[in-house]
């Protein structure tokens, strides 16, 4: 654990069951993903100091914020924590600018206004600085909340379902903005969400939570390529996720060529430009497995690899097959019958067939 990392251990049996232990380094985005009522928000509240479970150890860098074993706890207002609340919790009687200035108490009085204005500019809201929250749209309120959370110059940034209260169209835009902002921050960032779209777009690490219990924890790429997480399959759908670079745009064919650590892929070129770093997600249900390379198909993507792991419940009609392609592990969801027909076993060389339209290419403007 680095010197500015966040370390969290929380345990209790009731009233809200909790059993988690994780660390988050500066620059990482740890997404806590789970269904409603799984205890996600309680974890955030415990880090901020708004709630103390019966057993808690929270350390931010060299500071111990709470240690129930030593009966020590730092009050909320002395923890350098930035929180974006689910409903933003802006101060309704203050303008956007004053909302941000409220969190600047650590600066000399004369510097607060300029700093608040700079933060509102950062979230593209300087023109509405004199408006009260009631006169702002949902997305604008979210931006004020983000600016206010950053104003504290926090050691940890906590986002509680930050996109739940905005429209889909605004959401994509705000996700990009948060992604940009977090790249300029060198602090641990914890994102609580029940929408896997947020995870796919923003997270570097993932904690799966169910009933207060940690189901799995790890880097996003590693967790999304694990075949043995039926829980994730049911909640978000399986699909491996990896980084890629746009190496060429074939404008006449409407395709973009993406290089990743297992070869190249073709995707519809849409808004892609050469040199862009993207995230690619391949839903496990969209992959077809073949023993021979196919001919005469309208198919652009054929990746060759070998079966590295298989997972299937005895009573389920599907099997999750993990295939190593270069450095990347893909997940394919196939029927039990297909496994028998092809004679799929661990180590078998296979070809993964993927329609270019099935690729989910996630761009970030950063």
């Amino acid at each position, binding site marked *: 654990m680095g010197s500015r990392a966040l370390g969290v251990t929380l345990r209790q049996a009731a009233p809200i069951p909790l059993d988690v232990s994780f660390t988050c380094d500066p620059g990482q985005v740890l997404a806590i993903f789970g269904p409603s009522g799984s205890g996600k928000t309680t974890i955030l509240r415990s880090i*901020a*100091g*708004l709630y103390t479970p019966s057993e808690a150890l929270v350390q931010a860098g060299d500071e111990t914020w709470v240690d129930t074993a030593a009966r020590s706890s730092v*009050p*909320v*207002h*002395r*923890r350098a*924590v*930035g*929180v974006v*609340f*689910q*409903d933003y*919790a*802006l*101060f*309704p*009687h203050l303008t956007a600018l004053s909302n941000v200035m*409220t*969190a600047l*108490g*650590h600066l000399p009085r004369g510097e607060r206004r300029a700093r608040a204005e700079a933060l509102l500019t950062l979230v593209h809201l300087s023109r509405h600085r004199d408006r*009260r929250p*009631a006169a702002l749209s949902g997305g604008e309120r979210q931006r004020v909340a983000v600016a*206010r*959370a950053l*104003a*504290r110059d926090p050691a940890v940034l906590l986002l509680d379902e930050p996109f739940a209260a905005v429209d889909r169209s605004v959401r994509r835009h705000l996700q990009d903005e948060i992604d940009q902002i977090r790249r300029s921050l060198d602090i641990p960032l914890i994102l609580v969400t029940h929408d896997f779209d947020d995870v796919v777009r923003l997270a570097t690490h993932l904690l799966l939570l169910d009933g207060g219990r940690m189901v799995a924890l790890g880097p996003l790429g590693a967790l999304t390529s694990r075949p043995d997480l039926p829980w994730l399959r049911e909640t978000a759908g399986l699909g491996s996720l990896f980084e890629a670079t746009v190496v060429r745009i074939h404008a006449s064919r409407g395709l973009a060529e993406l290089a990743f650590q297992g070869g190249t892929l073709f995707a519809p070129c849409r808004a892609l430009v050469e040199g862009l770093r993207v995230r690619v997600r391949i839903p496990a249900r969209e992959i077809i497995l073949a023993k021979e390379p196919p001919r005469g198909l309208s198919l652009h993507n054929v990746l060759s690899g070998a079966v590295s792991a298989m997972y299937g419940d005895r009573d389920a009609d599907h099997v999750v097959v993990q295939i190593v392609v270069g450095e990347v592990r893909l997940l394919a969801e196939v029927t039990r019958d297909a496994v028998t027909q092809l004679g799929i076993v661990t180590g078998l060389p296979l070809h993964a067939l993927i329609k270019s339209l099935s690729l989910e290419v996630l761009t970030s403007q950063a």
Partner: protein
Amino acid sequence: MDFAALRVSSLLALATVVVLLPLGVWAGHALAVRTFRFKPVVEALVAVPLILPPTVLGFYLLVIFSPRSPLGAAFEAVAGQTLAFSFAGLLVASMIVNIPFVVQPIQRAFESVPREVREAAACCGLTPLQRFLRIEIPLAWPGILTAAMLAFAHTLGEFGVVLMVGGNIPGETRTLSIAIYDRLQAFDDQAVGVMAATLLVIAVATLSVTTWLGRAAGRRG
């Protein structure tokens, strides 16, 4: 028109508000945001003056004010007069009668400040006192003003307890509502009419301002 009575009434109403309001803000805030064991009992006690007959309340106050009780004796030793049938006694009685009118609106006002907003203030680095002064009071002020208005208007109109505890001493404990009763007994219909109209106007004005403030607060939230 008994101007001495109008003066006593106004002074009593003003003093009641000035002394009771800070206590009411403290109590209303505590009842709104804190959880403690005997909270339901405390809330019931706060509401008791609403339903207790003024005569019952007046009787108990007279017992406490009597020189034979510790409080009455202490006051007499310091002030050289009894609490009963004095302006000071009247003020104490008026404060007790007004507790629910002050505490309840203030409690509701603080309760209407969302918990997340209070928590966000803490996460912004504000100390409990800064949160109270900069976030909670500004958001609860329409309720606090309502409480002040209600206590003021209600004190002007209080009759039963005043008669029991204060009697009818001109310039000291004779309030406007007592004066009305007094004049009515003497068949001085014209004076009664003027004084009754005065109280009516004050009551209507107070309630209008209170309602208007409530609306303004609603629009802003």
